[in-house]
């Protein structure tokens, strides 16, 4: 995992690209909708979430690409080192490098758009619980599509439907908070999805990698 993070820091451009993309897309929205604060406040959480989905989606391929290209994944499978552990490390590294900074930037952009603070907290929690799930589910899809001819497009095709439930619950939480209701149920549900994804996704990713290598 540390190796991945160090490697990522050596390729600084690649590391920052998704984050810059994220910020820029968010900045595009006020231009599209006008600078009316009330309207922006309403569409902002959705914007942040959708942009987070897209940014994760774009950065996902990096999880396995270099190792796939130079054949190290094959070597690791052959060496008998538990592939699941490696996958967990890779996903954690991916989340630390995209998910975490994404949340921080999301908070800043939300301040930029003078977002009400109590809702911001909910948004923060949904992102904190949701982005790891994005990385985890994404890893499975990446393992399935990496190295294919139309890999990038295909990746989005399979991954976005799987992301929808997370988006729905995150948005429900933010909406409930705006309406002054409790958000416990949605947050619990998101945590449930996180736990489920944490237990199952690494296994699925490892087995898909094996399938791809066979």
């Amino acid at each position, binding site marked *: 995992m540390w190796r991945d993070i160090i490697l990522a820091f050596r390729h600084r451009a690649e590391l920052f690209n998704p984050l810059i993309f994220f910020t820029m897309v968010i900045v595009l929205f006020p231009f599209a909708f006008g600078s009316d604060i009330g309207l922006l406040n309403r569409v902002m959480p959705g914007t942040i979430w959708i942009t987070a989905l897209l940014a994760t989606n774009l950065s996902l391929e990096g999880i396995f690409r270099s190792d796939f290209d130079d054949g190290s994944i094959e070597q690791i499978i052959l060496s008998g080192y538990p592939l699941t552990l490696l996958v967990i490390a890779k996903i954690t590294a991916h989340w630390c490098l995209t998910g975490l900074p994404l949340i921080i930037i999301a908070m800043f952009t939300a301040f930029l758009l003078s977002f009400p603070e109590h809702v911001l907290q909910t948004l923060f929690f949904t992102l904190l619980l949701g982005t790891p799930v994005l990385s985890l*589910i994404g890893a*499975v*899809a990446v393992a*399935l*599509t990496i190295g*294919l*001819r*139309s890999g990038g497009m*295909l990746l989005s*095709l*399979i991954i*976005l*439907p*799987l992301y*929808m*439930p997370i988006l*729905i619950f995150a948005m*429900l939480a933010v909406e409930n908070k705006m309406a002054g209701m409790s958000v416990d149920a949605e947050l619990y549900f998101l945590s449930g999805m996180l736990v*489920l994804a944490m237990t*199952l996704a690494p296994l*699925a990713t490892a*087995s*898909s990698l094996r*399938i*791809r290598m*066979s």
Partner: protein
Amino acid sequence: MLTPWLSWICALLLIAGLYGGLIYAPPDYQQGESFRIIYVHVPSAWMSMFVYVLMATAGGVGLIWHIKIAEVFAKSCAPLGASFTFLALATGSLWGKPMWGTWWVWDARLTSELILLFLYLGYMALQSAFDDRRVAARASAVLALVGLINIPIIHYSVEWWSTLHQGATVTKLDAPSIHIDMLIPLLIMALAFKLYFFTIVLIRSRTEILEYECNSKWVSDLLNETEVSK
């Protein structure tokens, strides 16, 4: 071998179900005649989920025990399931126009069904992206299993979100809130849809296997046999 039998029973049931649904069943006291679209809508919605579960199970079986038939079966399921899903969505929106006054609402059940359609499409896209059939089957089986978590979300979405879509009227255990004269044709239709699915899926799997094994001996033997008998 089962195919002709299945298709005949299916045709009979389809006719019976259509007759019962379109002519025999009394019009609904609220919705009038247009409720009759449920005789297509509800069975295809059921089938859309049923086929997905079946497909994922077959995919899982193929993945674990490396049974080629299961892989082929899963692959043949996907386009059928996608068409059932599409049918459910299309008939639903045709019905929604006079009833809710709109073609589409962003209601949980509709949205989940749409997600299901996307899952099918993604599955088929992944299936066709590989050159090697075995790898394709196993890779997409993983995807189908991952997507399987979506099925309960679809099913329980009605309870979780308070929505515009009417609740289920048949599967309530105590007393179905649908009149028995309406229910019987509906069940017949559901059965007919199921048989239709099995007929087509068997034909598709057979074609698929023949295509896959087109270089092997038994296929050429089979071909020669049919030509001789002609």
